[in-house]
């Protein structure tokens, strides 16, 4: 069954259903919950990057006022492997008491040598974070003959680019509030992107059936890929609650959130790329590495977007004493994009070609995205005023230089075909859709309601979109831009089935066949003529609500998007300060359900990318191995005054719409930092090879170009 041809609601601008409760402070986030008798949990985490726990004495904490339970997480003799690693946890009547108690825990550390930065970790004879060395070389990938490709190039560039680790900085820190309802049953209010996985993790840890775990996430304060489970601290909350016989709330403090709540791996790439005079990339050789702390995960796509027939690459994961990497909005792609796009830009300059033209020449000939890119680039170039772009470093004589840059990106997304939605039509006319998915701020709740309202001829506010409960039919985790494409088809199926069941029930009373009935504007129509109000129709159900389960259907959603972004900047070459003037984002994502929340997602992606391009950086102190900016003053994020003009353009042709629903969370955040970097290079005539585009990195690049 296809999407309605002339929708009334789908594709319009609909304010989100939970907007008012959020804007009035009445929404209860997991960190706002306060079940009867609740205790406050606080974590003790490692102040050092690497140590053996010689002794761990919890007794002094147990004796502190108000303390109800204390647990050790590391055993004596165990290791802490990064600043922020978990050691123990306390639950007390007040948070102040719990903090005091954490301080009273006696830990004797045997300090071990650490490596906190990539150069430290890669140095000869560096202390090993993992057995066998800190540098784990992946298998080399090779396509065609890279050396031969480079040999025939008319222009070759060689450069090393670098982008640091950044952290997720979820505003609601990781955590949950746990309550044991009986010995075998637990309820957890969790700040999570996956109620189902969180329930499964708790069930597994406590060896109870997953049906006896209820994870509730009515709303939550941001995840960006870092909140897919209960985590050590969530398990700790449940253990403390078990021990104390009272509910326990455990949310990380801001410091540990930076240290242990996840991060996007760094990326360093030494790239050699060549092109022939006609503007075709002829070959590429890349050596890359990145760090995901004590875990893997620093791989990223390269080559990216463009067709490079002859290329070879080796990638290494570097291990160091830092918190685990976690998926972060389009994992790998922002790194791959800013590296590829910088080199492509340099190469175009070296060939003396307009970098836009160069890019278009190197799109993959047989990729469905190529036509989309071409159309998008034309729109974006017009919108940013690409024709005003001057050749590299030619913008003006004074110290303030202006420049333009661009970047292309892509993302998969797509649906998980095993998710379900229930639609209930009650005799009082109320309608509910249910599923164990959640809304992490993307608008997922509203999307389901829009689909239901569209099919039932009702208003969006007539629909109760009941999600964020792990006991509901299985729903999709919110990650990888898969939520909307996974959840829309079963929602469509469930609501269609419920509507058809209603028609079947009421048709005889209207002297009609079910096929004669339709719904519009809150009315039941017989052969196009309004006969009955929705409520009166539902009343005919008597005591029996309609309850239909919908499963995935093919043809309603799709996978794979393209996008391009343009940036206009000015750079003061005396101070190194980069000012963003304008960003243009052109993005496709199939059929858009809610234009308003879609735009918010794209703006949000661009602003995330702008942070990545201009401000963000985890700063590790090589001497002590601790993170120096684990706060929100020195870990820089854009504020309102940092906002340039941002223009968002949906690329939504009839062909795009016909593809069905595709997710939009990740794609628009990928290309922004790359476009900014290219605009800076265009402005100042020098490549700033180290992100973010801070004054120090800009000035260093200018200085080294001079020398």
């Amino acid at each position, binding site marked *: 069954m296809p999407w309605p041809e002339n929708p009334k609601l789908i594709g319009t601008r609909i304010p989100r259903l939970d907007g008012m409760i*959020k804007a009035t402070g009445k929404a209860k986030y997991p*960190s706002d919950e306060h079940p009867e008798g609740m205790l406050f949990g606080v974590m003790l985490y490692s*102040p050092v990057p690497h140590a053996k726990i010689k002794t761990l004495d919890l007794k002094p904490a147990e004796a502190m006022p108000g303390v109800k339970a204390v647990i050790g997480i590391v055993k004596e003799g165990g290791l802490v492997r990064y600043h922020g690693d978990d050691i123990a946890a306390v639950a007390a009547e007040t948070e102040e008491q719990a903090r005091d108690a954490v301080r009273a825990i006696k830990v004797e550390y045997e300090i071990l040598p650490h490596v906190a930065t990539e150069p430290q970790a890669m140095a000869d004879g560096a202390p090993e974070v993992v057995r066998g060395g800190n540098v784990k070389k992946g298998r080399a990938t090779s396509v065609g003959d890279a050396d031969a490709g480079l040999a025939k190039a008319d222009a070759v560039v060689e450069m090393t680019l670098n982008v640091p680790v950044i952290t997720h900085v979820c505003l609601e820190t990781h955590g949950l509030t746990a309550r044991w309802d009986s010995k075998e049953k637990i309820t957890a209010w969790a700040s999570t992107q996956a109620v189902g996985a969180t329930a499964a993790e708790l069930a597994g840890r406590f060896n109870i059936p997953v049906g006896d775990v209820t994870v509730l996430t009515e709303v939550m304060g941001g995840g960006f890929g870092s909140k897919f489970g209960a985590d050590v601290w969530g398990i700790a909350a449940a253990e403390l609650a078990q021990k104390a016989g009272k509910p326990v709330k455990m949310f990380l403090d801001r410091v540990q959130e930076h240290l242990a709540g996840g991060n996007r791996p760094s990326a360093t790439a030494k790239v050699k790329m060549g092109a022939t005079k006609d503007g075709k990339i002829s070959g590429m050789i890349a050596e890359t590495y990145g760090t995901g702390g004590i875990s893997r995960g620093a791989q990223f796509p390269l080559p990216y977007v463009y067709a490079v027939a002859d290329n070879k690459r080796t990638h290494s994961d570097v291990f160091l004493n830092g918190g685990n990497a976690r998926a972060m909005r389009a994992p790998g792609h922002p790194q791959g994009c800013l590296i590829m796009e910088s080199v492509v830009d340099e190469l175009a300059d070296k060939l003396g070609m307009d970098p836009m033209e160069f890019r278009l020449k190197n799109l993959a000939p047989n990729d469905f995205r190529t036509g989309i890119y071409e159309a998008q680039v034309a729109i974006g170039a017009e919108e940013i005023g690409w024709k005003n772009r001057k050749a590299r470093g030619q913008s003006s004589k004074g110290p303030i230089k202006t420049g333009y840059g661009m970047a292309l990106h892509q993302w998969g997304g797509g649906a998980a075909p095993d998710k379900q939605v229930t639609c209930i039509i009650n005799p009082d006319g109320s309608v509910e859709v249910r599923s164990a998915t959640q809304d992490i701020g993307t608008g997922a709740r509203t999307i389901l309601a829009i689909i239901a309202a569209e099919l039932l001829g009702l208003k969006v506010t007539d629909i109760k979109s009941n999600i964020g409960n792990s006991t509901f039919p299985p729903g999709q985790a919110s990650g990888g831009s898969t939520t909307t494409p996974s959840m829309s088809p079963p929602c469509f199926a469930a609501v269609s089935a419920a509507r058809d069941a209603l028609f079947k029930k009421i048709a005889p009373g209207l002297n009609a066949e079910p096929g004669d009935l339709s719904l519009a504007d809150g009315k039941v129509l017989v052969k196009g003529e309004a006969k009955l109000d929705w409520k009166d129709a539902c009343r005919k159900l008597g005591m029996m609500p309609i309850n239909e389960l919908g499963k995935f259907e093919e043809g309603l959603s799709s996978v794979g998007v393209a996008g391009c972004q343009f940036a206009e900047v000015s750079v003061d070459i005396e101070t190194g300060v980069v000012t963003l003037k304008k960003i243009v984002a052109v993005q496709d994502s199939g059929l858009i359900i809610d234009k308003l929340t879609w735009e918010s997602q794209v*703006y949000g992606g661009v602003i995330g990318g702008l942070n990545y391009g201009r401000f963000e950086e985890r700063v590790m*102190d090589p001497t002590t191995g601790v993170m120096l900016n684990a706060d*929100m003053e020195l870990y820089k994020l854009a*504020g309102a005054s940092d906002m340039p003009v941002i223009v968002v353009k949906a690329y939504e042709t009839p062909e795009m719409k016909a593809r069905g629903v595709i997710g939009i969370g990740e794609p628009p955040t990928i290309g922004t930092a790359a476009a900014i970097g290219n605009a800076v290079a265009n402005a100042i005539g020098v490549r700033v090879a180290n992100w973010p585009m801070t004054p120090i990195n800009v000035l260093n690049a200018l200085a080294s170009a001079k020398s």
Partner: protein
Amino acid sequence: MTDQDPKSRSGSSRRDFLRGSSLAAATAVLTGPAQVALDEATGAEPEVKVLTGEVSLTLKVNGEEKTCKVEPRSTLLDTLRHRLDITGPKRVCDRASCGACTAIVDGVPVYSCTTLAVTCTGKTIETLESFGTDANSVPHAFHQADGLMCGYCTPGFVTACKAFLDKNPNPTLDEVKKGLDGNICRCGTYMGVLEAALAAAKAMKGA
């Protein structure tokens, strides 16, 4: 405090000082995080001495007198959230850099995470739960312009916006940006937020 201490610029280790009326906390004030880390690791941290004691406190919040017990070191934010179940204001940075905890005290927007509850007796405290919700209200404008996504920063933005517009009913876009610079959003809702602020200013005039 050494020059390399990144915290020294803001002097905001004050938070830690407020939290624990003990020598351990004072150590955090006197040295940088790296030094603290080393001290703690090497057992250099002195014995924990905790001087606790709750006081009874009456606060006038959203027009109602509310009594609760707090410690002298308890912040206004924690008192609202933990003792009075007023959870609109959020705890995010917990040290005066993000604005999520903004409340209005005697007409002035403050970071409630760095305001002691005991300093607020006799003052008028407003949180966004008390704001109007009609078509001319700030929350309504945020909802309509989609100036929120996850919504965790939103209470702070709404409160800062309301306080700002009460003083500057006719702002330009640049003034709004400056007025809201004390708040941070990670989801990236600034475009909606700015639109909402301008729309609310307009609507309030019409009201």
